[in-house]
């Protein structure tokens, strides 16, 4: 794109790369490094850039002494269930928007998508009494249902843009053979839609895994707490300043989502930027 044969251009390129790269990667490097430093090394006025005596003590402690495994388990249950729910809802709705013609189709779709811009905090104001009236306050089910708010609108749109590209001929041919619409969807369209379905699943999983606000408000008891508020309550308060533990726990909390993302990032990027780019 740019011609870097001149010395000046090369210098600017390298300086910009180093500067922004440092900003992006240093915090992650520091997170990893701090998690394997022992306490004496961690609390020094001048930090060591490379750990002198790497140790896994913070990881061992986080996994054995604290409630981190329980929080992780809760997050896994809640995020997994809500991602399944959102994916299923978005699948049928996206397919309906893409392949059927009925009055009000486009306005309804745009309205649904615009819901992504309703402030989540405002919705929570009335979700809270709603969950309370239904007896779902402080339950995993209540949180799972509330997480629909985050990801369903965009998930539906992502699947809509994918299904729009599935050729009509494919569906018409099956229809001519006498297959029912639901059968066509389940046996012909779904099997060729694995990448977008996985993308949407991961997208909604990420939203609920990373959430702090809803979980912090809708869950009260410690045994149902998820990872976001769990980390915050365990490690970030005035009395306790276990930074090594906080960093180790942060890495453990990030691991599932980072690993999943590494394998699927290509689909993920395509899905998230779909619709915005022609």
């Amino acid at each position: 794109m740019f011609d870097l044969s001149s010395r000046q251009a090369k210098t600017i390129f390298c300086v910009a790369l180093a500067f922004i790269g440092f900003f992006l990667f240093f915090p992650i490097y520091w997170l990893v490094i701090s998690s394997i430093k022992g306490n004496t090394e961690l609390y020094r006025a001048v930090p060591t850039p490379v750990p002198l005596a790497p140790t896994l003590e913070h990881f061992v402690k986080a996994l054995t002494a604290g409630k981190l495994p329980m929080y992780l388990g809760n997050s896994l249950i809640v995020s997994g269930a809500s991602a399944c729910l959102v994916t299923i809802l978005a699948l049928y709705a996206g397919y309906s928007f893409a392949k059927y013609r009925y009055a009000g189709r486009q306005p309804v779709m745009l309205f649904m998508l615009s819901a992504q811009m309703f402030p989540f905090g405002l919705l929570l104001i009335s979700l809270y009494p709603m969950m309370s009236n239904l007896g779902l306050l402080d339950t995993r089910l209540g949180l799972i249902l509330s997480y629909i708010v985050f990801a369903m609108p965009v998930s539906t749109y992502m699947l809509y843009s994918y299904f729009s590209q599935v050729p009509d001929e494919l569906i018409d041919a099956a229809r001519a053979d006498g297959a029912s619409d639901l059968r066509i969807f389940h046996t012909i369209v779904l099997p060729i839609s694995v990448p977008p379905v996985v993308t949407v699943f991961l997208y909604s999983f990420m939203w609920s895994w990373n959430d702090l606000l809803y979980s912090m408000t809708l869950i009260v008891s410690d045994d149902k707490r998820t990872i976001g508020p769990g980390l915050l309550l365990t490690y970030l308060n005035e009395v306790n300043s276990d930074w090594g533990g906080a960093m180790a726990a942060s890495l453990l909390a990030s691991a599932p989502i980072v690993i999943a993302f590494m394998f699927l990032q290509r689909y993920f990027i395509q899905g998230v930027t779909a619709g915005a780019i022609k």
Partner: protein
Amino acid sequence: MAADMMRNYPVSPLANRRGLKGGQSRIGLLLLLPAAVAFTAVILYPFAKALGLSLFEYTIEMNAPRFIGVSNFAKIAASPDVWAAFATTAIYVLCATAGTLVLGLAWALLMNQPFRGRVALRSLSLLPWVLPSTVSAFVWAWIFNSRYGVLNAFLMEVGLIDMPQAWLSTPQGAMLAVILTKIWLSIPLFMSFFLAGLQSLDKEQIDAARVDGAGNWPVLRDHILPHLRPVLIIVVVLGVIGNLQQFDTIYALTQGGPVRATTVLSVEVYKRAFEQWDIGFASAIGVLWVATLMPPAFFYLRMLVKGN
């Protein structure tokens, strides 16, 4: 209306022959139904209800909301705290969006240039985006830590400050921290949008410009940036919407403090509703918050419609 259509075309879903549009649209509506129910129950109804609550007085001592008309809004107009939250939000959104835009675009341009290790670097630079918000807040809180933070150590080493600064305890320092955190975690998303936009750039056009003697700067100014204009608009709009909504990292880093220095609208609404339990007043602030979101949201939807 849907019921009318069904009555006019009484066909079984199995009787799908070409031309039976009524049956077709009925199946379409049926497929939409579960999502529509969920949408109405957890998004639309709570939204409408919250809007309605802005006209009520509803605090923790009350059994039922009491209608008070627009009194909440009058109270807001007379509340310097709420005005300050709007101003804080404006600064936060402006700085975070502008910062991410510049760095995200620059990073995308760098990552579009072929060099060894580019693919790996590009993948790695998505990391800040996927980390849980609490984790991002932890990392930056540790960097900004007043006693053991690496930022203080570095600034003292190069001689920019003489004494360790308690960044998160000063209004400016806390604001800087929440903005930097948001820029950091949004760069990957912005970069992805720009990279997707750069893929459709006409390389021959650039080669032709080069033959005519155009340098790097004219190529950027006359070819690359104009080409990215539509993406740029989308990214700015999405960025503004996202930043207006941001809660998690701010709350985890500063809880809106020190005092109220980083209390943006999301934190303000949360505190009014779930710490002071002044639901009606919180809803009224929320309504104004929605109003600030409307222009960018409208703009975005209009572009989507045009795109289709």
